[in-house]
């Protein structure tokens, strides 16, 4: 069974985000980028499924500019066999990304599409569901457990009410949540090996997708600042402060 994993290049989760003063976006110059943490979990899961003998080939795919090659090299170091770089320097919104991934999934004949439940830059939480919708196949979002059994899979999902289990027929889209696994630490030999693995570079047009007019960013602003707080020294002072605000 073949698995396709999407990996997005995003501002590293440790970076303190600064909004540009002209409101055109956030500062990305000189900022550290890395693979979307949820996509690392998706990669890890693909590798674990292969270790369990459920998966034979792992293909990583990204959409983005030249620098996305770094992200693909990380995916290859995790254990992807090969990678596809859909090169696009401009903006790609979720429906467009989903159309491209759906086309690749079909062309590759992959049985499973693993992706992060959300990318930590735009926090859209859409792409996986859209891929499933476009192909009319099953989806299981926010996965915290994935068990593949022949042509079916059982997936446990983290939802507001607790833990839900679905059974899906393959092919299916699974978007992963944080507690699915803990991604391994990439070792130097794997990083070296990854340099020799093949990356196929194509354009959106090669998978029959064109950039369409999507939603337009009017401006980006910093969140409203909170008023400065106070420090109290004792529990009695804390109780007094709460009382003075009418909170208890």
């Amino acid at each position, binding site marked *: 069974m073949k698995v396709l994993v999407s990996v997005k290049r995003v*501002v590293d989760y440790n970076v*303190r*985000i600064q909004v540009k003063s002209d409101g055109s976006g*956030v500062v990305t110059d000189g900022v550290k980028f890395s693979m979307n943490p949820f996509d690392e979990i998706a990669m890890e899961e693909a590798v674990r499924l292969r270790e369990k003998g459920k998966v034979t080939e792992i293909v990583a795919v990204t959409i983005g500019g030249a620098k996305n090659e770094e992200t693909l090299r990380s995916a290859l170091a995790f254990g992807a066999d090969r990678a596809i770089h859909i090169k696009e320097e401009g903006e790609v*919104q*979720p*429906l467009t990304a*989903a159309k491209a991934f759906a086309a690749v999934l079909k062309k590759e004949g992959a049985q499973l599409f693993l992706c992060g*439940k959300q990318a*930590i830059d735009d*926090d*859209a939480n*859409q792409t*996986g*569901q*859209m891929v*499933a*919708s476009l192909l009319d196949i*099953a*989806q299981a*979002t*926010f996965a915290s457990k994935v068990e593949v059994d022949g042509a079916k899979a059982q997936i446990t*999902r*983290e*939802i507001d*009410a*607790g*833990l*839900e*289990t*679905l*059974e*899906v*027929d393959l092919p*299916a889209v699974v978007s992963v*949540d*944080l*507690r699915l696994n803990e991604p391994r630490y990439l070792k130097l030999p794997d990083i070296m090996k990854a340099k020799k693995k093949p990356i196929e570079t194509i354009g959106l047009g090669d998978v029959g997708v064109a950039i369409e007019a*999507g*939603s*337009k*960013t009017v*401006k*980006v*602003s910093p*969140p409203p600042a*909170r*008023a400065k*707080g*106070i*420090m*109290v*020294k004792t*529990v009695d*002072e*804390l*109780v007094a402060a*709460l009382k003075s605000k009418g*909170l*208890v």
Partner: protein
Amino acid sequence: MSKILVIAEHSDGKLNAGVAKAVAAAQKIGGEIAVAVLATDGAAVAAQAAKLDGVAKVVVVNNAANAYPIAAVLAPQIAELAAGYTHVLFPGTTFGKDLAPRVAAKLNVQQVSDIMAVHAPNKFDRPIYAGNAITTVEAAAGTVVATVRQASFNAVVGEGGSAAVETVSVSAALPSHTRFVKIEAQKSARPDLQAASRVVSGGRALGSSENFKVIYDFADKIGAGVGASRAAVDSGYVPNDMQVGQTGKIIAPELYFAIGISGAIQHLAGIKDARTIVAINKDPEAPIFEVADIGLVGDLFTVVPELQGKL
């Protein structure tokens, strides 16, 4: 004029509280508001939806396939119901987040996630980068499909209204590739995290599920809901549905206690809309104190029981 369809989330015959918040967002957009209830027998839920302030019509689709909400099953029905509407809104819960993109793709439109303010019928604010930036976006032409951020809108009143209820049937073919197996729901007598006006959260500092009793006891004393940091959930002290933050629940209580929580940006993303944040942490340098309205440096295991005794 806008025609807005709000998709009802419900379970056990009860309308989810998030729906009244989505209706509030619909009122901000302005226009005629309908609520869609997809169920096996949607009468009871429809009756609740019909009472919501501002709702003109409730559309019910009864089908045995809707016994349990499965996105792949609901999406084609909603895409069909959406004909004639300018907007389709979903509560920004895991139900809405799972389902809305599936509907948007069927309608061939981009989706606007987590709207937190409405500037115009097609112009919204939404958070990006865990709420560290707010982007104002203008939706493209076509149906606006959006999820409504729960912490940003006050629920409309659910008593006065008397909308017409209409049962309709849809012809969309429904898939059978996704089957519900089970749900392990945490039944709690405590106030629901997302609706509670007071929330007490504990972090890694609690050290064990037994020690979390300190948090539960204090919460019960002040009638609060209980939340947790990711570290506390990952360590197995508490179940996943208690996680507060970028990837957990986004909450907006009047009063929030962060106890033994360092204040990572991903955690703060979940509490930015809390009216008053109280932090108790033994490290005076903990980043949580930068956002706290009231901070106290101290050991939670002595401070919290003392506080409980004095309230």
